[in-house]
């Protein structure tokens, strides 16, 4: 009875978020771009992009507010965000990796896409109180949020017992998709490409492959150390890295409306220079997920059951 009400409540929020997001994407974002391009001429990308990022953050926050979350939910989100922020702050001092991204993914898996997004966004915001706020803050919030959201969407957390399956069959889909996508990227590079291969193609094709693969296996990915770390590696590298590179480019205002062709090249250069950093970040995430991902998810599940998060 209780669960049923929660389910419907969950559905309602989902619908609400869908409508708000739809309005924002279909109306506000094009309007912003139009106004920006029409009236602000060609060099206001920093401002416009900041607005767009804020639009994408807003529906999550607003729906969360409307839903009037319970105290337990708030506390869980606050604890997980604090942990993710602390993981980033503390680990960066001791080792080259940071545990924050892994924790955001874990939070997304065990608390669902909504909370996963909020944990990511809030954690990054809080983190930047210590590391320094900047125009990059909304971008980073968005990236972490999306990672948490995605993790919540694709992992199956109903079959806790099957967690240790390590069945390659289910992982096969996404992995194959990504590999195919990277293959396609390589082919397109052989046919049309100039310059080195490690550029934007790797990110763009990778992102498409990853998304397709994840859509195929939606809600079905098993939670075991291998799948977790594979997911961590790919999503951090492709999604976080890909978006943050755009952010760097937009911030440095390297795009020039009349010179799209030229800016593709600068984009390539930027993406190549981003590969080592993104790869370290992704490796760290995969590493932490491999070591404690599954264990921490079990612990969160336990806390949820023990304290009646579902009641």
């Amino acid at each position, binding site marked *: 009875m209780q669960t049923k009400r929660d389910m419907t409540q969950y559905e309602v929020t989902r619908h609400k978020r869908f409508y708000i997001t739809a309005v924002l994407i279909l109306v506000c974002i094009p309007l912003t771009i139009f106004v920006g391009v029409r009236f602000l001429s060609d060099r206001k990308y920093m401002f416009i992009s900041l607005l767009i990022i804020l639009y994408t953050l807003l529906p999550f926050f607003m729906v969360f507010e409307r839903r009037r979350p319970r105290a337990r939910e708030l506390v869980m989100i606050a604890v997980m965000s604090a942990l993710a922020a602390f993981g980033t702050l503390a680990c960066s001092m001791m080792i080259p990796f940071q545990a924050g991204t892994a924790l955001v993914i874990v939070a997304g898996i065990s608390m669902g896409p909504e909370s996963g997004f909020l944990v990511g966004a809030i954690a990054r915001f809080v983190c930047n109180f210590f590391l320094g706020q900047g125009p990059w803050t909304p971008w980073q919030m968005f990236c972490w949020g999306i990672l948490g959201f995605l993790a919540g969407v694709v992992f199956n957390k109903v079959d806790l017992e099957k967690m240790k399956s390590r069945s390659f069959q289910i992982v096969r889909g996404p992995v194959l998709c990504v590999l195919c996508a990277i293959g396609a990227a390589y082919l397109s590079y052989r046919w049309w490409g100039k310059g080195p291969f490690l550029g934007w193609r790797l990110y763009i094709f990778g992102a498409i492959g990853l998304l397709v693969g994840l859509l195929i296996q939606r809600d079905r990915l098993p939670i075991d150390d291998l799948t977790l770390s594979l997911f961590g590696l790919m999503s951090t590298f492709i999604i976080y890295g890909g978006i943050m590179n755009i952010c760097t480019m937009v911030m440095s205002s390297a795009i020039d409306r009349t010179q799209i062709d030229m800016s593709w090249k600068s984009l390539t250069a930027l993406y190549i220079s981003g590969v080592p950093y993104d790869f370290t970040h992704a490796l760290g995430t995969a590493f932490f997920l491999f070591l404690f991902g599954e264990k921490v998810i079990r612990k969160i599940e336990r806390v949820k059951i023990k304290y009646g998060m579902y*009641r």
Partner: protein
Amino acid sequence: MAQVEFRDVSFWYPMSDGAALQHVTIQIEQAEFVVLCGPSGCGKTTLLRHLKPSIAPYGKREGQVLYRDRSLAQLDRRAAAQQIGYVRQSPDEQIVTDKVWHELAFGLESLGYDQQTIRRRVAEMASFFGIQTWFRRSVSELSGGQKQLLNLASVMAMQPQVLVLDEPTSQLDPIAAGEFLQALRKINLELGVTIILSEHRLEEVFPLADRVIAMEDGHITCSGPAREVGDFLSRGQGRDRMFEGLPAVMKIYAQIGTGGMCPLTVREGRLWLQSLLPPRAAVTALPQPAESRTHPKPVLAEAKDVWFRYSRGGVDVVRGLDAQVYGGELYCLIGGNGVGKTTALKLLGGIYRPYRGKVLHRGTAMANNKNSLRVGLLPQDPQALFTEITVEEELFDALGDSRCPDREKERRIEQMLAQLELQALRRANPYDLSGGEQQRLALGKILLLQPELVLLDEPTKGLDPFFKAVLADILKGLAEQGIGVVMVTHDIEFAAEHADRCAMLFDGQIVSQGRPRAFFSGNSFYTTAADRMSRGVFEGAVTYRDVVELCRQNGI
């Protein structure tokens, strides 16, 4: 009309056989100060949580809980939140927001008061509790005692009629606990708020209580004024688990067993003792136990003129510490808050390095992080050691790095479970254990590494008297094996009873040190209740057993 009434309440937790509460019937009048006592796990918390509908435990319930003659379940949420205040054990976990002022206002915000009202109420509460000087601070800057006082004040800001407190002082040091209890007394006397308090520290709360209710195994064994309940607990069928927790004065009275009114405070105890004895008692001191000189104990760790500070620009926390720890002894470091006890402990264990002076382990200085001594540290919170999902795996984790065969590991874990009396809980999650059990599990984890020096940081915090006795036995067992045990504690009574040597720290150095009897009789304030009570009549009677023994020798 009773303020709160339990009418034949029984309660069962889901998936457990025994009842957590059995036919509990209590009436609590308005403005009464009620103390609930009993060993841990006797159902105190379950009972108290029934008073707060929003956090009432889930399970099967029979009987009725009434609030002003109406069922508590029918009380609407707003009234329940406002009229019944609830304060729990842990000072840290109850705080929600990051600023003191915000925390004070939290409850009032929930009730939907406007800015002006909240401002006034918060101002009132801050003044009542003396919080105004730290009103704008971050909560992370506060001490444990201040945090707990803040928790109390933020509940009181909602102006409740009934205040329910579940062992609120168990995590505080004696000074802070005393202040907290004084604040409670002030609330009770000046505002007429009903107070229902569960406690282990009966020494201080018995004099405050209008009524004491003793519980055991989910039912009420005795209820009445403190003197009667004390009398009951010490005379009952055999002496039950609660006896050790009674105030020393009451224990002495009970053991001597003469007539007259049962004393409650040290003052009453002194008068009573003096009335009992002739002006000049025949025997005034117990013989000092002869030191066993046959086996000179080896020095395990030694600090020589050690100075320490946490950061370069900081102040010295430890200033010229000189101390020795011998194998096979229980060495207690006592002293007020912030005198550097914990720091001294960690310096002795080689966890911190002094910037001046030396710490020697078995006579050699440490080199490159490699101790020549195996040291085990039990942190203040045992949770700091827990990694696994079950008790058994937890112990396995300790042996994870060792190379001995699995069978050998299993044997040692089995042995440890038996030693700690945790066999029945081997499959339980460490976080489902009670505080005392968690403490023992953490200790077991450390002992599996076969340390030669064991460091304990406030191990008796939050333990009921029974668990304290268990802990003392374990520690004595360790000392018999030749292990050096150093503990930092606020618990003077524990130190007086069980320590081989005590040292008092002040301002980063040891100001006095010696065997408990000589040590405590040299202090006049910072000493046990038994000593304070018998001072001037007996010498060096620091535990209640000493006083009883001396009385017996004087023919009483």
